[in-house]
Structure formats: C-alpha cells, structure tokens
C-alpha cells in the first residue's frame, strides 16, 4: 500500500447521492482473481454507452477531469455491496481521496485499507464542493483537514489507527499478527 501524507489536486464532481458500489464497478467485472486493471471499468455504465464508446457528457470523460485525484460526490457514497473492487477501481484509475457528506461504512473501511482517503465533510462544505468542480483542494492527512481554495481548512473525522497506518505505511495485518498472544489466550478461554 502506498503511504499517504498530503495531496493537492483539482476535484472532479459527481453530484449524485447514494452512488452505490454497483455503479463504481458493475458486477460483471468482478470475475477477476487479481486487484489490477479495474480502473478501466470504473463507472463503466456511466462512462461508456452500449457499444463501449465513451459518453462525452460523463464528467470523467471530459478533458478537464484528466489527472484529478480527488473525487467529490453526493451523500452516502459507496453504499451497497462490500466489494473491495470499488476502491481498487478508483485507485487504479488514479483517485486517491473521496469527499462526501456521507460515506457508507464498508466502503469507508475498504478504502482506508487501500490508501484511498474517505473524507466526510459538513453540509455547507459539501454543497460548496459540489457547486465548484475543478476547485484546487489540499488534503493533509496528519492534520485531518481539507483546505479549500480560499484557505479555509475543513477538519474531517478519521479513525486514528487507520490514519496512523496510512501515514506511516503500517500494514494492518502485520499489526494484527503481533496480537497473536492475546488471540491465543482468548482461544484458550473460549
């Protein structure tokens, strides 16, 4: 996993609310046994028409979206299925942070475990971001703030252990394995 400290990028905006993981990566692309290459299918049914041609009106297909690493979306992003293919697809495409006023629990966990930062902001900030696509934003993970173009620093909540792991490149499985003596003790008790 790539460690994460700071990121400055223009935003790309998907204003829809309740964007579910079936939209992020449709099920027919899940018959894979690896994590790689899923970016090609990110938002496949919104990005491409029936014949596989790019839909010019979809935001990711616009020239201005190229290179944007921060995705701003409507409330309750990532609801639905637990498929980790959703953050894998976003990361493979180049997105490193998702900003919304609400992010679904399983998606949020999955994102954190892969170095995709879920940023939950208050309603006014969310509204401002949705209304200003292409805004240059700076995400500071250590401070847990998102800086808007006017310099306003918006704090966001992040689970402290996940934050620590992301900042320092700590591997959660490695950490869990260090708890083996307690796991063994629990198994003897149970």
């Amino acid at each position, binding site marked *: 996993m790539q460690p994460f400290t700071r990121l400055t990028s223009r935003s790309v905006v998907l*204003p*829809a*609310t*309740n964007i*579910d993981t*079936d*939209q992020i990566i*449709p*099920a*027919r692309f*899940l*018959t*894979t*046994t*690896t*994590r790689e290459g899923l970016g090609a299918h990110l938002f496949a*049914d919104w990005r491409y028409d*029936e014949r596989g041609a790019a839909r010019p009106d979809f935001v990711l297909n616009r020239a201005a979206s190229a290179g944007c690493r921060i995705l701003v979306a*409507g*409330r*309750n992003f990532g*609801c*639905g*299925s*637990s*498929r*980790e293919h959703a953050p894998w697809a976003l990361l493979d495409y180049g997105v490193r942070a998702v900003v919304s006023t*609400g992010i*679904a*629990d*399983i998606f949020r*966990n*999955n994102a954190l*475990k*892969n170095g995709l930062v879920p940023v939950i902001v208050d309603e006014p900030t969310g509204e401002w971001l949705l209304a200003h696509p292409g805004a240059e934003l700076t995400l500071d993970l250590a401070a847990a703030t998102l800086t808007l173009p006017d310099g306003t620093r918006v704090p966001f909540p992040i*689970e*402290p*252990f996940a934050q*620590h792991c992301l900042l320092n490149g700590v591997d*959660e*499985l490695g*950490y*869990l*394995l260090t*708890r*083996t003596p*307690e*796991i063994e*003790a*629990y*198994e003897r008790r*149970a």
Partner: protein
Amino acid sequence: MPGAPRTLFEKVWQAHEVAGESAATPAVLYVDLHLVHEVTSPQAFALLRDRGLPVRRPGLTLATMDHSTPTRTEQIFGGAPIAIESAARQIKELERNCAEFGVELLGLRSDQRGIVHVIGPDLGITQPGKTIVCGDSHTSTHGAVGALAFGIGTTEVAHVLATQCLLQRKPRTLAVEVEGTLRGGVTAKDLILAIIGRLGVGGGTGHVIEYRGGTVRNLDMDERMTVCNMSIEAGARAGMIAPDETTFAYLAGRPRAPRGADWERAVSAWRELPGDAGARFDRELRLDASAIEPMITWGTNPGMVVPVTGSIPLAGSDAVLARALDYMGLEGGAPIKDQPVNVVFLGSCTNARISDLRSAARVLRGRHIARGLTMLVVPGSQQIKRQAEAEGLDRVFLEAGAEWRESGCSMCLGMNGDTVARGEYAVSTSNRNFEGRQGAGARTLLASPLTAAATAVRGRVTDPRELM
C-alpha cells in the same frame, strides 16, 4: 453486583473482544464463523500465499460458490462448460485455494451448496451469539438467529483467514420496534421495505439494528432472515433479532447444530442473550405493522419504495428523483400498479427460502405466467431445492411456465450470465434495484414473493391480494 443492563449486541460484542478498543487502536474482535465465496476471496488467499501465512482456524471457515456460479443444471451436473470463462476460472481458483489452505468447500456439485447466507442457517452452523463475517454485505442475514453478523471487504477476509480476528470500532445501536399485526398478503419483505423507506438508504450508517417488538416476535425464521438481510440497504452493517423458542425450534436437528447434551448447554447459553430490561439504544424507531401495505420499489435504490396501491412520486425540482425516474422510464404521479413487466425473478438470499417458494407457488398453482414474460425461480440452496421438489413446488412453477434452476445468486446481481436485458422491467424478490444491478440498463422493481408471483400471472405489477 450486576453490571449495567446490556443489549443483545453488547453481549455478543463483549464476549468476542480479544482486546478492547482504546483511543489509538480499535478492538480486536474474534470471529466464530467465516464464510467464504468465489468472488471476494481470491485476492485474500493470494495475500496469505505471498506472505507464507496459513489459515489460522480452517475449522471455523466454510466456503461455497454462489455469485458467479451457473444455475443451469447442464453446466453443473451435465458436463456442459460453464458459459462465462472468467467465472469458471474463479470457481477453479476457489477449489484450488480451499484445497491448498485446508478449508472445507461446499463445491459445485455438493448437495449442501447454495447462497452463502442461505446455507449457514440451512445447515445450522449459523447460531445465536456467534460472530459471523463474510466478504459480502448481506451477511447481516445471519443476525436473524441472534448472531452478530456483518459483511467485510477482501483485505479483511485476509485478516480473518490469517488471524481469525478483525480490527473493529464498536458501532452504535438502533432499535427498530414494530408492533401490530401484518395484514393478509403483507409479508416480512414488505415490512423491511417499509422500514428502509422510513430510515432511508443511509439512515442506519454506523449502527447495528436490533428488530424488536411483537410483530418481530411473531415472524418465523425465514421471515426474520428476510428482515435482517436488508439491514444493509438502510446502511446498517448488521441487523439482529433476539433468539427465542422460534429460533431454537428452527435450529434443532439441523446438520451442524449441536446435539444431545451439547444442544442443552447451547440453548441455556442462548437464553441469556436477549437484551436486559432497561438496556439503552443510541437511537430508536417505532413502526405500526398494521398500517403496512404490500410494498414495491419504483426507483434505483431500495428506499425509493411505495405501496403497490400507491403512485410513483413526482420529481418536482428533485434532481435525484428525476434521474431515477428517467433511468426507470417511469412517469411521476402514475400508479405503480399495472406497470408492464418483462421478467420476474424469484430468488436471492432475501427471498429464496422454502417458505418464499411456497408462498409464490400458492399464487401460481393452477395459473400460468403472462405470455411473453420470463420467470426464473432460483432456490437459495440445493437443500431447499430438494425440499421444494419433494413438495411438488417445482411442478407448480414449471406448469406455470417458469424456469426452475439450480441454486445461486443468479439474477440478483447478474454475474453468472442470468441477466435482465437493457430497458426491460423485472419484478424481483432480491434486495437491490441499483442501476444495472440485474444487467446493464435493466430496470428492477423489488417486491415480495407474493407480489412477484401475482405480477408474473398478469404480466403487470399486481397487488397479490387480488389473486389470493
């Protein structure tokens, strides 16, 4: 000194804390049962292989195949190749991983195979008080017996395989209290759709729901599973129902339930699980069951739901509603009833248990599905399939003109080639009506098995009470 009164959730959570949470670190939570399927496990096994790690407790891990698995008999038993090559590879990969890591697999031809959330209770391995996880969001289903059961991602699947534990922050609790008698023709599916309509699809985020009250106590186990199954559709990772005599009667004698003295010991422990009097929840929602009608979704998430006797909402200036109406090709203000339908899907971990098949068969017996309509009946497990055949339900479906398939997820997510065509309307007993869920461009209306069967007969969205 007795401690503070605790909820069902708190009791199960505390009993599984290997280490409690602190400000800096989450709790280490022990997992009693880890269910594995072909789609969300390959990358997890690969991670173990890369690191040279074994599966810590193979005996607490059970694998099956359901998501990308075919439902056509000839592709399972008849030697025909699995139609989708990448799905066939995924199935092979699961077989290889289970053999290499010593995990029991209820494989393609096993008579205990089925949808992962159907076989757990079927086999009696889903038990009160357990922690159960699976790389699938509808793991919430198992909470119907009083287990704490939730979906996890593939990285967490690897964590559980390697350590039998998960790093977790304690969620908040939400009590959904339901009182009153469900009217005739109104089912557990209608109840949970009504609850999601009230909570909204993000309303349960961060919470574990406990369903309580007289109405819930009167539900049988299949119905309780339907309710807990769709907890995730309100954003809650888990739904739970306190175990009671109904639970114990359901589990008694199942292949992997405890027996003899072990059973007696288990039941007396399970009786301690229901929440203590005075235990507090972080939030509460109350519902009157007697006011609920048969429900059906009109839009592109499960919260977009109306009574089957009601009207599709007007979008007004709401862009979200407008977009959903546009995708669905429906007109705001029109009645949902009599909307023409191309496909009816009776299946999924929400509604493909034996009582679901029986209730649909009750409507279909002696009737035929509408001309031009396709109906797929996909039992939740091979055990349920055999049971239905023993009761003659397969004949009822076949004589009505429906297809009768081997068990699996099938058209619920359309990964195995069972899909709804672009632009077509499907009334489905499954749990998600997201854009493209049942196939690119497919339009899904979620409803109960009764409503689905009645709709199949008429070829139009139908209030099941008209055919009962």
